[in-house]
């Protein structure tokens, strides 16, 4: 592909502006010392409804939206692509119910991470460690997806094509270094501030795309007709070749379970991710998040129209075997160069914000639940912040390993793989917000069962081009149809946890101590903090 100079210049200009903003963010709305984890990692817990809306939306509006979902719609159609719309609708009622309770208990006990909560709730640092490990592990492919998003944009602009692999990867490495540097200096304030610019760009690009492109392509009716024709063609070709059709214009009877479990599993998983929790805990009041859920579906609506870019690419006759390039190539084809540059910048910056939030969240997990709980119980707040900053760098290298080590064509699989792992923390975190019925050891055993089963099943999924981790659905035992592995693993997880809890209840002495009380789940900002009871090394606060 030849280089598009104008688009590249516009994109670089916007990207540089955002990078400067990221460094300047260190000074924004700062009350306390940046050298504590509350300041660096939670922005001082001071964000109101407006900032929270942007921050939470930023969690959803990632390269996932712009690259992975249209790519999946382009290559696979309704089941593997459009489920994201159902998923991003169903996530908000879940947030509405769960997150105010998590906010209250975290506020009261100064919990920074979901693993802090689990440690305190079940009196088990080991269970907390399992939750922290899962959080860090599942964020790596999700951050990797963001890097893949940036890479797709660079590919579509024709940067470094045909040259050595080092030159090709150089811009990505530069973007990665910029990201690492401003996260290191500014903490959560950087992505929160950049989120404004990012959303402005994204909204402009989305609005222009969903109005301008359909007009150019002859209306939505024509776009859907082209997708349907493409599906029929693909099915006929598959039949002739004796293989299974991959593209679905509508879910068929065989894929109802896959569609429903992908939507439900992803919705349940999103707010188990440590970075989503970070966005919630950084808000000022208990009900900030709840009020936000009324307006946040606006993001879901945008996602739906962005998903349709995949069908628009089909209607426009975009031909690529690399489905993650579907939307960027469509932009390049239909827009004038300068606006394609704006669109590419929107995607790249849209990947940068969540990648920063995610790496901060993963770093917080490492610091609080591995470093402090197991290695240096007496770490000072300054030490915690320093360790977090370094950990955030390490996590980005882990993400890079996923980019290099996995097949990234079906980018949506990166996110679905993370979902398989993170959903296994649901019984400890989400159920734990309401009841302490489960025994801590039973939760641990259930988690282990879910993790092992989920990883094993995902490893076994192959496609004609990839041997392992080629997808996130596998046959559901008993039912027989394909379903999202995360949900099957969660069912196994819960079964193990229930059975073992019943057994372990015979020995009440092993239950562990709960530092939270019923009212802690209901308090608001003006109702005071509890000194951190029982958590190792925190009495100093």
């Amino acid at each position: 592909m030849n280089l598009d100079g104008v688009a590249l210049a516009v994109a670089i200009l916007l990207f540089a502006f955002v990078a400067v903003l990221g460094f300047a963010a260190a000074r924004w709305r700062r009350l306390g010392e940046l050298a504590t984890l509350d300041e660096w990692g939670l922005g001082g817990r001071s964000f109101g409804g407006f900032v929270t809306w942007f921050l939470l939306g930023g969690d959803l509006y990632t390269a996932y939206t712009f690259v992975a979902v249209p790519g999946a719609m382009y290559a696979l159609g309704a089941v593997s692509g459009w489920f994201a719309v159902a998923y991003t609708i169903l996530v908000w009622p879940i947030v509405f119910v769960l997150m105010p309770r998590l906010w209250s208990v975290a506020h009261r006990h100064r919990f920074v991470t979901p693993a802090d909560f689990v440690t305190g709730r079940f009196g088990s640092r080991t269970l907390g460690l399992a939750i922290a490990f899962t959080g860090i592990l599942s964020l790596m492919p999700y951050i990797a997806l963001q890097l893949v998003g940036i890479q797709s944009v660079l590919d579509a602009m024709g940067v470094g094509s045909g040259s050595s692999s080092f030159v090709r990867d150089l811009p990505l490495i530069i973007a990665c270094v910029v990201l690492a540097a401003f996260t290191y200096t500014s903490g959560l304030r950087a992505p929160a501030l950049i989120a404004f610019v990012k959303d402005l760009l994204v909204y402009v690009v989305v609005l222009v795309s969903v109005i301008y492109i359909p007009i150019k392509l002859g209306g939505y009716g024509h776009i859907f007709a082209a997708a349907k024709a493409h599906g029929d063609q693909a099915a006929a070709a598959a039949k002739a070749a004796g293989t299974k059709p991959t593209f679905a214009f509508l879910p068929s009877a065989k894929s109802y379970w896959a569609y429903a479990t992908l939507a439900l599993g992803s919705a349940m998983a999103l707010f188990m991710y440590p970075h989503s929790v970070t966005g919630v805990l950084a808000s000022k009041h208990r009900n900030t998040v709840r009020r936000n859920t009324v307006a946040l579906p606006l993001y879901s609506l945008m996602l739906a129209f962005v998903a349709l870019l995949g069908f628009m690419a089909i209607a426009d006759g975009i031909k690529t075997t690399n489905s993650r390039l579907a939307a960027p190539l469509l932009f390049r084809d239909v827009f004038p160069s300068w606006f394609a540059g704006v669109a590419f910048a929107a995607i790249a910056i849209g990947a940068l914000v969540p990648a920063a939030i995610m790496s901060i969240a993963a770093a917080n997990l490492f610091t609080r639940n591995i470093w402090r709980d197991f290695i240096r119980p007496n770490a000072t707040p300054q030490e915690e912040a320093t360790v977090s900053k370094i950990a955030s760098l390490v996590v980005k290298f882990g993400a890079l390993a996923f980019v290099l080590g996995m097949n990234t064509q079906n980018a949506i699989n990166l996110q679905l793989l993370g979902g398989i792992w993170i959903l296994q923390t649901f019984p400890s975190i989400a159920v734990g917000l309401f009841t302490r019925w489960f025994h801590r050891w039973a939760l641990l055993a259930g988690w282990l069962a879910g993790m092992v089963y989920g990883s094993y099943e995902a490893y076994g999924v192959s496609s004609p081009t990839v041997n392992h981790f080629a997808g996130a659905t596998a046959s559901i035992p008993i039912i027989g149809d394909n379903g999202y592995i995360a949900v099957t693993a969660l069912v196994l997880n819960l079964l193990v946890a229930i059975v073992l809890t019943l057994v372990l209840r015979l020995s009440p002495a092993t239950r562990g101590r709960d530092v939270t009380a019923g009212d802690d789940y209901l308090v608001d900002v003006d109702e005071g903090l509890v000194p951190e009871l029982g958590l190792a090394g925190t009495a100093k606060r």
Partner: protein
Amino acid sequence: MSESNATPAQLSNGRGDQPLRVRDAPVAYVVSAVALAAAFVALLWVPSYAHATPTLGGFPFFYWYSLLWLLLNAGCQLLAYQLLVAGPRRRRSRRGVT
């Protein structure tokens, strides 16, 4: 299991009559629960809407029905927010209690 610093009485002092538990406002809670569950039933029952027709503005039924539920669900969340948070807060301020 462990001790809390604030008794329920203290808590309710701070927030007037905000219903924090199901027993404080059972009707509001049940209505909210049904409203919030509706989208799950609608969207996870895939065979009920995996059809091409009737189309709307060029969108096959499957696609526009999903978007319709996006709006309906936002409305349901607004209703639940009004019932559980905003409504009680308004009533409280009307009575002049802070």
